[in-house]
């Protein structure tokens, strides 16, 4: 960042760590004896504690959603476009919380953390956690922060799935639910991409069945391939055409397998950048959590039944060129909400950026986001309610 903080940024932020001694029963049947969540907050919690917003992160992101950790940071948090003073998620008005999911590798308890029973990193023994488990940890974080009810739970992609799970598991603990560029469950194609990514990591000779920390190495090649594959699914054909076309690195073909095309250069750069930044065991775990997410599964595959106990107002947003979680997938969620007569809005943003569009500063998206956020009501209605109670016939 430059020496001065941009006026519409939350500026310098320092993460906090919440410790949980109470064992956490997991969906897989195992129990996590204790764990830590690293999280950041932006803005101020008001006196009625009703202006809190939970941000849920996607596959490879973390608790650092906005602002900068130091003046030397080149890049701000991953959702700087949407979170900050005067931005759609306005930190002048709201208290924003974002935690790193357990199983992660950015500070919350995960495969790289020390297993208290062995004194060694969990590695592949870290239990397979699910979206539902994450939501439980986030609810416990809310308890610690004394937030009874989120004004909104907001997430894109895998984050949107967490927001949806919140509306199902804790219907009284959120007023608004934002499900952006998400799906009610993964398609066979989605799972297929995840499987290729996992095979790339698992078949890397440096994987050592997940115990690579012991050998002071990591399955770098596999992780890089997984990331390259991921990036293809985050972009649309049009976005790749616009960004790279058939541009060459040099003036003409070199008749080699080195980087010839700009798109190859981009993918290799993204893949290499990931090495050392992200843990392979976490990547495996996060993609599996995606595969498993399917709230309708326990309701005879009836999504409408799964959403029948929800109480939140829903804000569904999809992007036209997103083929990873296409608008049709968001419409499945909308349909299930309409079946339940839930307060719901749905916006389909015309964008050629593919799945990544949910992170971008697209004018119609920002307008819609702001307009949706305007539906959040911080007025204290307890006075009105008590007045009604007084006048109610007894």
């Amino acid at each position, binding site marked *: 960042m430059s020496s001065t903080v941009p006026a519409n940024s939350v500026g310098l932020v320092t993460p906090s760590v919440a410790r949980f001694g109470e064992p956490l029963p997991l969906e897989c049947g195992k129990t996590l004896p204790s764990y830590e969540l690293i999280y950041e907050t932006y803005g101020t919690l008001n006196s009625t504690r009703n202006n809190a917003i939970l941000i849920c992160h996607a596959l490879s992101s973390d608790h650092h959603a906005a602002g900068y950790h130091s003046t030397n940071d080149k890049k701000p948090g991953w959702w700087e476009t949407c979170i900050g003073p005067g931005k759609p998620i306005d930190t002048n008005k709201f208290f924003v919380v974002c935690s790193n999911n357990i199983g992660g590798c950015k500070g919350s308890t995960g495969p790289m953390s020390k297993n208290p029973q062995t004194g060694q990193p969990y590695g592949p023994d870290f239990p397979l956690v699910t979206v539902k488990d994450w939501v439980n940890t986030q609810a416990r974080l809310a308890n610690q922060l004394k937030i009874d009810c989120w004004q909104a739970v907001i997430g894109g992609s895998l984050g949107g799935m967490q927001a949806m799970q919140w509306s199902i598991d804790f219907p009284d603990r959120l007023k608004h639910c934002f499900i952006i560029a998400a799906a009610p469950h993964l398609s066979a194609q989605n799972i297929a991409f995840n499987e290729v990514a996992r095979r790339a990591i698992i078949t890397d000779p440096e994987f050592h069945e997940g115990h690579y920390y012991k050998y002071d190495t990591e399955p770098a090649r596999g992780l890089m391939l997984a990331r390259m594959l991921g990036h293809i699914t985050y972009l649309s054909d049009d976005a790749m055409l616009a960004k790279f076309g058939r541009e060459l690195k040099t003036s003409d073909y070199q008749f080699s397998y080195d980087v010839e095309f700009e798109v190859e250069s981009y993918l290799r750069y993204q893949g290499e950048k990931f090495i050392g930044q992200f843990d392979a065991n976490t990547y495996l775990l996060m993609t599996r959590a995606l595969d498993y997410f399917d709230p309708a599964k326990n309701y005879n595959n009836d999504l409408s039944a799964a959403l029948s106990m929800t109480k939140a107002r829903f804000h569904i947003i999809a992007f036209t060129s997103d083929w990873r979680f296409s608008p049709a997938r968001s*419409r499945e969620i*909308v*349909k299930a909400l*309409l*079946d339940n*007569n839930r*307060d*719901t*809005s*749905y*916006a*389909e943003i*015309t964008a050629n950026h593919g799945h990544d569009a949910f992170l971008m500063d697209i004018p*119609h998206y920002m*307008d*819609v986001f*702001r*307009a*949706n956020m*305007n*539906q959040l009501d911080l007025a204290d209605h307890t006075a009105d309610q008590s007045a009604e109670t007084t006048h109610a016939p007894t």
Partner: protein
Amino acid sequence: MLRPDLEIIDDWIKPRSRVLDLGCGDGTLLAHLTEHQSITGYGLEIEDENISKCLNKGLNVLQINLDEGLADFNDNAFDYVVMTQTLQAVSYPDKLLDEMLRVGREVIITFPNFGHWRSRMNIALQGRMPLSDSLPHAWYNTPNIRLCTLNDFEALCTEKSIEIAQRTVVNHAHRSTIAMRWLPNFFGEIALYRLRSS
């Protein structure tokens, strides 16, 4: 001030009913009905700017193209399905009409009458496609691709055994006159219908 044709619709809709507004625009009608009639429901709209306007009014708006039909909605999910000044702009008005009668107990529909005398004069005397306050677009860029007259529309209703519970015609200032009541398909500029499946 509410547009007078919307005032008429407001009179037709019972309080606390469930309403689906197809092509709800900036949400003026839905917002009015929510405030004055305590209705609940949804608006469907396609234009980006209108989505934000509806959201800013606190409405449930869904960015869905009417040409896709109403598959997201269950049978008889609404007391009223309303569509104002949009019928002429959809690709399959006959199919959409079936869908509206499927998801709503009653359908309220308004459209510009192509049988209005001024439209007829434009064609008869100038040999040109009509331009008017209610039909302001040139033939090559008009969104109004399915224009019809009152008689055309009522013939379709007969063919589909749709019951016309009420019909009102107004001019572009949305006023009704004796002439319109006498010769609606000649003097009426905008038609308003209440329909039910029979």
